[in-house]
C-alpha cells in the first residue's frame, strides 16, 4: 500500500510536526514525511511516538524519509 507523503523539507519548526499531525488526522493508518534536518526528524518522531505511531527512519539524500505506521 502506498502511503500519502508530506514534503516538509525546508520548513521551520513547528510546521513539519503540524503537517504530520494534520496528515495522520486525515490518514490514520499512516503517512510518510520528508524532512531535511535532524530537529524536524526528532520532533516528528517524538510526536508520532506520543500519538501511538511507530516510526521507520530512512536516510534519503541529504534528508530523511520518515514512515509512520500504527
Amino acid at each position, binding site marked *: 500500500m*502506498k502511503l*500519502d*507523503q*508530506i*514534503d516538509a*523539507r*525546508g*520548513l*521551520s*519548526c*513547528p*510546521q513539519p*510536526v*503540524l*503537517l504530520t*499531525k*494534520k*496528515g495522520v488526522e486525515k490518514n490514520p493508518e499512516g503517512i510518510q514525511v*520528508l524532512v*531535511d*534536518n*535532524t*530537529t524536524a526528524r*526528532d520532533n516528528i518522531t*517524538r*510526536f508520532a511516538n*506520543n500519538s501511538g505511531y511507530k516510526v521507520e527512519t530512512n536516510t*534519503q*539524500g*541529504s*534528508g530523511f*524519509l520518515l514512515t509512520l505506521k500504527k
Partner: protein
Amino acid sequence: MREKKGIIITGAIVGLLSVLLVKFGNPVNMGICIACFIRDIAGALGLHRAEVVQYIRPEISGIVLGAFLTAFGMKEFSAKGGSSPLVRFVLGFIVMIGALMFLGCPLRMVLRIAGGDINALIGLAGFAAGIGVGIVFLNKGFSLKRTYSLAKFEGYVFPAVMAGLLVLLLAKPAFIFFSEKGPGAAHAAVLLSLAAGLIVGALAQRTRLCMVGGIRDLILFKDWYLISGFLAILATAMIGNLVIGKFSLGFADQPVAHADGLWNFLGMALAGWGSVLLGGCPLRQLILSAEGNIDSVMTVIGMTAGAAFAHNFSLAASANGPSPNGKTAVIIGFAVLLVVSYFNLEKTVEVKMKGDVELEA
C-alpha cells in the same frame, strides 16, 4: 524519557550558570539574557548611545561559537536560508521592542521569576497569551515558506563575526564603548562569561532548548519535552538564588525591572507572538544562526537593529517604567504582527505527493 533527561540536565546547568554569572558580577537576575546582551553589544558598537548599557557580552559569542562547534562536530551544520528573510528581520526587531518593554528576553523572564520578581509572572502570562495568538495563526496555515541550501561559506560568516567581537572585547579599541556605571558595567570576568556561553551554546544546540517552543509544544501537541528544560532552569536558578541570597519576593524594587503590570504583560505578549512566528525564542535564534541558518542570522540582526532603535528613540522601558514612545512602539508592533500573520497564511497548507520522491544529494 532518556531524551527528556538531557534537556532537564541542560536546563539545570543553564540555571546554575546564570546564578554563577550573577554571583561573579553580572546584573541581578541577568546571568544570561539574550535581548539585554544583544542590546549591550549594540551599545558597545555605538549603534545606540545609552551609556549605562554598553558592553560586548562574551556570553553571546560563546553561545554562538559553542553551538557552531557542536553542530559542526555532529554534522548538523548546514548553510541555508531564503525563508522570508526580511520578514524575519522585522519580526526580530519587534521581538526586541517587546522584550525591552518588559526588560528581558524569555530566558531572563524565567530567571526573573526564579529571583522572586512577581512582575515576571505577569510577563509570563502575557508571553503565554502571545504564544496562544501565534498558535491560532499557525493552525490556520501560517508559514514563512521554505529554506534553500546556500554555500557553506555563507554559514561561517556569523560565527566569524562573533569571534571578531571577542577580539574587540579583548583589544578594547577607543571606538568601542564600555559602560562605566549601570547594568553595562556589571559583568563577570571575560573568561568565565565566555566559558558559560560556550557550555550553554553546546547544550542548547544538542537539546534544542527553547522557551517559546516549550509553551507552544505543550499547547499544540501536549508535548512536555521543551518545557521540561524551561522548568529545570526555573528550579535550579531559584535554588541558586536562595543560596547566594539574591532571592527577593515582590513587585517593587526588583533589579533591572519595572512594576507596570499592563506593559509587562503586553511587552512579553508581543515577544511571544513574534517568537512563535519565527519558530523560536531569541536564544534559539542564536543557536540556529550558529548552525548555518541565515534566516535566523537576519532575525538576530533585526534584534540588534531593534535594540539600537529602542535606545535611540526612548522606546526601552527603565526601572521607572515604560516610556510613552515605548508604548506607541509596542502598539505598532502588534499591528505589524497582525499584518504579517494574516498575509502569510497559506490556503493549501499540505504539499502532498503520491508515490516516491527522490531527494537530491
